[in-house]
């Protein structure tokens, strides 16, 4: 009898426990590796700042997250998180809204398509970070400049993707809707829009990474609070004991956002993933 391998080859079928162990293994190696390196370095020089021990990081987290700042009277990590999330939500939210409307209309109205597709394609290729100085000059270094970077950085990608998804809706469906008494307006907002919504959430998910990049970059350059601001601020003191927890925190936030979007798609649009074909 043929034996299915557990691990090797394209026919391998890893068992559930094995998958779990293998999935965790890289994490264990990473953390373990860090602990060993940290231990060795601290052994040689107890004042070493590059690889702080877990307890040192815990102390810093306690200071940043659970103690009121003496100067401002605020919990710094909370303030940083809220500021960053607000910028993110504003920038990405606006980009999603505008991108949805633009992309959908470009995709379904040939007139809007021929007018806007070339310019949107052109604009989407401009690296947003390259025009960051321009944004800061035009919109100022305050909140608006940062939100605009996230907005413009995600807008064109979202627009193009939604336009694409709109064009992929079979022509037959649009004709069918018309034979059911739908007006052209209704075709766009009652037939196309509800079908595009889950795709919009998928696009936002894919844009999250870039949005974080824009957020951290703009906070690093000009800000008075925010997660990116804090990381770049304490970099001056080589405070790896703050940077590492902050990076982990950002990663966790990103992971949660991604999971929330994924679950929303699953709950609200159960037909989405399955009815592609």
């Amino acid at each position, binding site marked *: 009898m043929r034996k299915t391998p557990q691990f090797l080859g394209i026919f391998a079928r890893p068992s559930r426990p094995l998958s779990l162990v293998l999935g965790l293994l890289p994490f264990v190696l990473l953390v373990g590796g860090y602990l060993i390196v940290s231990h060795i370095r601290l052994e040689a020089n107890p004042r070493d700042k590059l690889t702080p021990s877990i307890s040192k990081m815990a102390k810093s987290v306690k200071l940043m997250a659970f103690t009121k700042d003496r100067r401002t009277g605020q919990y710094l990590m909370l303030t940083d998180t809220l500021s960053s999330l607000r910028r993110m939500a504003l920038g990405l939210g606006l980009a999603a809204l505008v991108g949805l409307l633009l992309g959908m209309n470009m995709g379904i109205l040939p007139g809007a398509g021929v007018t806007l597709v070339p310019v949107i394609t052109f604009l989407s290729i401009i690296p947003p970070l390259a025009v960051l100085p321009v944004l800061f000059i035009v919109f100022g270094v305050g909140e608006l400049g940062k939100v605009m970077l996230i907005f413009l950085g995600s807008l064109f990608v979202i627009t193009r993707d939604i336009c694409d998804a709109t064009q992929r809706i079979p022509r037959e469906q649009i004709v069918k809707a*018309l034979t059911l008494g739908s007006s052209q307006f209704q075709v766009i907002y009652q037939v196309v829009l509800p079908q595009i919504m889950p795709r919009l959430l998928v696009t936002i998910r894919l844009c999250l990474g870039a949005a974080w990049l824009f957020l951290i970059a703009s906070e690093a350059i000009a800000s008075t609070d925010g997660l990116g601001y804090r990381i770049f601020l304490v970099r001056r003191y080589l405070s790896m004991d703050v940077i590492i927890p902050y990076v982990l925190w950002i990663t966790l936030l990103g992971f949660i956002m991604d999971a929330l979007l994924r679950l929303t798609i699953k709950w609200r649009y159960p037909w989405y993933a399955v009815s592609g074909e």
Partner: protein
Amino acid sequence: MNDKPNRDNLLFIENLYKAYGAKVVLDDIDLSVKGGELCTVVGPSGCGKSTLLRLILGQEEPTKGDILIGGKQVGYPSPERGIVYQKYTLFPHLSVLENVILGKNLTAGPIEGFRRRKEFRDEALFFLEKMRLTEHGGKYPHELSGGMQQRVALAQSLIMKPYILLMDEPFGALDPGTREHLQIFLLELWEEFRMTVFFVTHDLEEAVFLGTRILVLSQYYSDDRGEGYSDRGARIVADYPLPRQATSTVVKETAEFGRLIQQIRLDGFDPTYRQHVTKFNLRHEDSFQTLDVEPLFPSSTDAT
């Protein structure tokens, strides 16, 4: 054949041409269909039967010629014409019941739709029951089999009470068993509602079994444009009433049935058998033919 075609017939087509660039697909189609007819359309693949359907539907525009429904020129797709395609007919984001109600809601608008929601729902349920799908109303289309999906698509169209129901190879993607089942089902619905149907199929058996009238569309014919002329678009080369024996598939085994299919195969599908345009079998009482109009591209006739 009819010398005085009635322009007020439910569907009336005269001197219809469709060309894509220089390629003529439909070459002077004349057709008149009375209400209540179940018209099946067959022809070799690529002869333009789906094109003809899309022209009637308003999804495409004729290069030349008139299409009238109820005496009025057709425009963009509208509720007078229902459509069932082979696939993509259902909206994946709506449940079965919502799919059937959709037309009612779209026509009524949100306020009216909300006020009459009970009435619409009952009407949709009535059609779902007719389709024997009552217990599947809450499911999404992807949870249904192909045959069920097509039944929902039928209900979705029928609830709008269209003048004419266009069907473009609606059972083409189904397995043979489901297919026969749906054929009988369509006949039962037709017996009950007597809707006018324009049914395009590539399956001759299906066409002869379902139709009250058969239209054979083909580019294999001869005319005064000469032997060497190769750019002929399809014409209706045969148009006659079909005997309706029973709503049972047993009829498919009979000799008469086989003979009909052989005849259609000869009329439309045999490239070596080319009847002259004046000799077509246009026995149907509504059938008519205009031969005196100038060709679509006058210059190309000189080339031969």
